[in-house]
């Protein structure tokens, strides 16, 4: 009798425990770096070749839980260890695993921008692997400086989902910056290795030479060197003349904005609302768009080809091509997100992703935005004139095009 009555009470409990058990089936496997399958497939690597790349990378960079770095990278392993691994406090109560705590759900454990939340974000998070960064104080093709990345983490990227980490202690931000460089170097090295198969001569038998000369001197060091060189690649900014006549400067800037040398109007639109040419992609998305196009045309061609007159070799080549196309399609489904365009910025908002100090805008206009369609004005617009454009851009959110007097008060948030 009693047991009869306990049954309904326990029913919910059992149901609940079943749900809980279903949720947790098995221990979580250790984190691993995902291979760059898009590149591997593009380069038509064999399974053995993929394995060779993975083995080399493991030796050079370790795993997400156990990072290592060769002295050539110039990275600080102690900082990396603070950022790597699962989130936990060490024996002195210092938090480890910062990257997985703060970044990996967007940027992915590998830094491939395939974190769980990535598909929902617009713009997508940065894929560090190509080693391209947008918001920095260096010339267009150069890496950001250490200070650039620290400032980026401090400010976040306003207008996107990239948050500000200003509330984290400086030590943690340092460690995170070091880890971003580490992931980026790892990604670029991976790309270099995968592309190197293409240049092998026949007697290499499809294997990369595992010599120090090739792996470190020819592959890793050039990647690391670009990071080291960033400090010397800073944009030289002439100071804005202290006695500048703001009204005249804005008028001049306006002229340049609409003029055909800088031709900002082409993309940012006659109104500055960012409604000019708006159907372009940034480099990461463009790469996927182009692969998509290639696959589509390749598939049509392969399907239309008549197998009737083919020799046995041609036939097997044809089959291999079909299999490759099929595989590539699947790889794209899993390892690439739906490409998104990058609209030119609406300049009437006053939201600047790369920072809102006048000098940030100077950097943006001087060097353009690396990886994005936004071109560099360097070379077409003299350095002093870039300041006029900066002043004009900064007047746009207030709708005072060309009428803003230098004596007009600025909003507090624009005063530094």
């Amino acid at each position: 009798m009693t047991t009869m009555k306990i049954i309904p009470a326990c029913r919910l409990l059992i149901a609940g425990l079943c749900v809980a058990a279903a949720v947790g089936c098995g221990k979580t496997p250790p984190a691993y770096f995902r291979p760059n399958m898009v590149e591997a497939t593009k380069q038509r690597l064999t399974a053995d070749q993929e394995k060779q790349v993975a083995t080399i990378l493991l030796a050079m960079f370790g795993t997400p839980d156990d990072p290592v770095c060769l002295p050539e990278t110039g990275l600080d392993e102690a900082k990396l260890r603070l950022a790597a691994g699962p989130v936990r406090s060490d024996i002195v109560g210092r938090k480890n695993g910062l990257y997985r705590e703060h970044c990996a759900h967007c940027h992915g454990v590998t830094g491939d921008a395939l974190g769980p939340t990535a598909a929902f974000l617009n713009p997508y998070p940065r894929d560090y692997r190509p080693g391209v960064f947008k918001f920095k104080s260096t010339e267009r093709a150069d890496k950001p400086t250490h200070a650039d990345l620290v400032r980026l983490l401090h400010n976040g990227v306003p207008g996107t989902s990239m948050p500000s980490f200003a509330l984290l202690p400086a030590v943690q931000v340092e460690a995170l910056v070091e880890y971003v460089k580490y992931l980026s170097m790892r990604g670029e090295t991976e790309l270099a290795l995968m592309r190197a198969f293409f240049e092998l001569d026949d007697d290499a038998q499809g294997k990369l030479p595992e010599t120090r000369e090739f792996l470190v001197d020819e592959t890793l060091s050039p990647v690391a060197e670009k990071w080291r060189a960033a400090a010397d690649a800073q944009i030289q900014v002439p100071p804005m003349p202290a006695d500048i006549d703001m009204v005249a400067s804005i008028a001049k800037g306006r002229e340049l904005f609409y003029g055909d040398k800088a031709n900002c109007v082409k993309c940012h639109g006659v109104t500055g609302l960012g409604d000019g040419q708006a159907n372009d992609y940034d480099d990461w998305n463009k790469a996927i768009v182009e692969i998509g196009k290639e696959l589509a045309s390749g598939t049509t061609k392969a399907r239309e080809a008549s197998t009737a007159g083919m020799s046995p070799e041609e036939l097997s080549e044809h089959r291999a091509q079909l299999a490759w196309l099929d595989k590539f399609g699947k790889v794209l489904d899993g390892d690439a997100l739906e490409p998104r365009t990058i609209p030119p910025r609406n300049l009437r908002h006053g939201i600047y992703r790369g920072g809102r100090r006048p000098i940030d805008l100077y950097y943006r206009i001087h060097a353009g935005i690396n990886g994005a369609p936004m071109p560099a004005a360097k070379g077409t617009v003299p350095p002093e004139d870039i300041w006029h454009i900066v002043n004009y851009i900064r007047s746009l959110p207030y709708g005072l095009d060309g009428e803003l007097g230098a004596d007009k008060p600025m909003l507090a948030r624009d005063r530094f």
Partner: protein
Amino acid sequence: MVAGFNWTFPLACLLVGVTAVLLCFGALVTTYDAAMAVPDWPATYGHNMFLFPFADWFYGPWDLFLEHGHRLLGATVGLITLALATLVWLREPNATVRGLVAAAVLLVVVQGALGGARVLLDDKTVAKVHACTGPLFFAVAVAIAALTGRGATAASASGGPALRVAVALLVAAYVQLVAGAQLRHLDAAVVTPVMFRWLVAIHLAGAAAVAGLSWAAVPLCRSQGSGAAGRWAVVIAALVACQLALGVGAWFVSWGVPSGLLPAAWMPNEPLAARSGRGAAVVTGHVVLGMLILGGSVALAMATGLFARHPARATA
């Protein structure tokens, strides 16, 4: 002890109250990723949990404060459960209450062990299960309090559609917590964007189900159930409305406003701030409110006749 005074009910209420605080701490531990702030278990940095120096805990790092506090509260809840179980074992004739208390003891032991395993194995999967068992225990605690309360015997068993909707709401509220736990314990090494999209879709569908059921319950319970059922239904419906707002807020503070959703001029021009108190409050509040909705729907289900003494059996 006053002879004849029913101590079970106040003790059960205490259990519900302390468990609610425990759940808040648990949710904060997840929000601040503080689970591994103490690397050992059941000891805290080598100390017996209860003897860990108070000042080191209270004035220590925030994540240590949360994790150790969560452990202390967990132990307290365990002790209250055992006291309640003793009392019920000695005094309570009602078999349903006895069954529920047995379930509570079982759950609190399992939950404590899961908490320990989460730390010792440093495993996020265990953390997810731990996050799903917590609200289950809370639901049982609420059920005990509701059954031992003075009103319990008076509540008329209404049954019928009101009970069915209430039980469906209870199940949906729990499933929602399970789905939410998956979203919160995101293991970036395991979850792909595709899986995440599914999780979000499930959580949104669940939100629609909970909202629909909770709002459908209001007219049903007001017309059919007892007065208590009607009141609970209104409270839950209001909580669910707040919960939807918090859910939207949780999205915004975590991932920003999806571009193109709002008119451009409304877009915030400040970046999101990781680890901001406001963000943590919104996200944690969303979890805690979810658990309160679950507790409320237990009370509602009971007010509409769940576990009500079946006339046939009561006389038997």
